[in-house]
């Protein structure tokens, strides 16, 4: 049995065609099917991610707006009750009877003994 033809003339660029061919004949491993699927699925997922990214961003923005608008609205002052306003204004605008003289005020507050006696 003769040996392999691996000692032929070497190309000027360092390539030995005999050895390279022998290697290519001997090395035949391939990736596992699971590895193929992982790579191809990864590529498909990346494509989907890029393709739908603008739409996803738009949907996220809309969702955020839907959630935020009512929340912000609730922070505003509650609606004003017109009756309460009128009542308040009445209180404010009604002048209190000023007590011109402190002594008179005391007399007005304290019941007079003369009046109580019916004299």
């Amino acid at each position, binding site marked *: 049995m003769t040996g*392999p033809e691996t*000692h032929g003339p070497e190309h000027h660029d*360092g390539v030995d065609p005999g050895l390279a061919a*022998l290697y290519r004949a001997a090395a*035949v491993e391939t990736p596992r099917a699971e590895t193929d699927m992982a*790579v191809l699925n990864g590529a*498909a997922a990346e*494509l989907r991610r890029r393709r739908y990214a603008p739409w996803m961003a738009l949907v996220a923005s809309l969702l955020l707006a839907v959630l935020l608008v009512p929340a912000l609205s609730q922070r505003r002052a509650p609606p004003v009750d017109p009756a309460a306003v009128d009542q308040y204004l009445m209180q404010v605008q009604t002048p209190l009877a000023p007590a011109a003289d402190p002594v008179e005020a005391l007399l007005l507050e304290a019941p007079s003994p003369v009046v109580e006696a019916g004299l």
Partner: protein
Amino acid sequence: MGLARLIALQAPAGALGMVPARGGPMRDLSPLTDEALMFRWRDGDLDAFRALYGRHRARLHRYILRMTGALAEAEEVFQEVWMGVVRSRESWSPTAAFRTWLFAIANRRLADRSRKRARRFHEVFARPVDDESIVLPPSSDPDPAEATHAAELGRALLAALGALPAEQRQAFLLQAEGGLSLEEIAEATGVGRETVKSRLRYANQRLRRELEAWR
């Protein structure tokens, strides 16, 4: 046994097989160059990526396998490289041949791994190839003696390759497996053309010497 006979015995069946598209027949993208396919992939054509993957998956896998020396690690690096291709589709520009770019990515991933282990690049690449990771195909040769010889010869070559210094093995594999020219190997490995040529010459000399016993 002649080389042609040996190749006929061990020719890989479907080693570069295409990956069929899901959901319909695959378009015929075979006339397109790698770069044209990459442009299509950049535009979102998944079939173009499948075609690229089908063209280069086996040779890249074998290259990484022989540089790492372990099947499990090779599978991880292999996936990392292709995910790099996937993610860089929009930033890719044809500054170099796709094949050169692909193997350059692989070299960077291999170097990253070696750094993570806090080992020197050369120490990692100098690891001999694990015999268990070498899978030779069952031969269809009717002559058991010839088949046995072919299988043993192939195993001897791969073992000798695994024992080569890292840079020589890398240069040999990029040329024999990747089909890269001297200039492309220089670009993918970051060294000069003459350095690549020298590494190739030493690798070939050593491999021939190792295989002398089989003559």
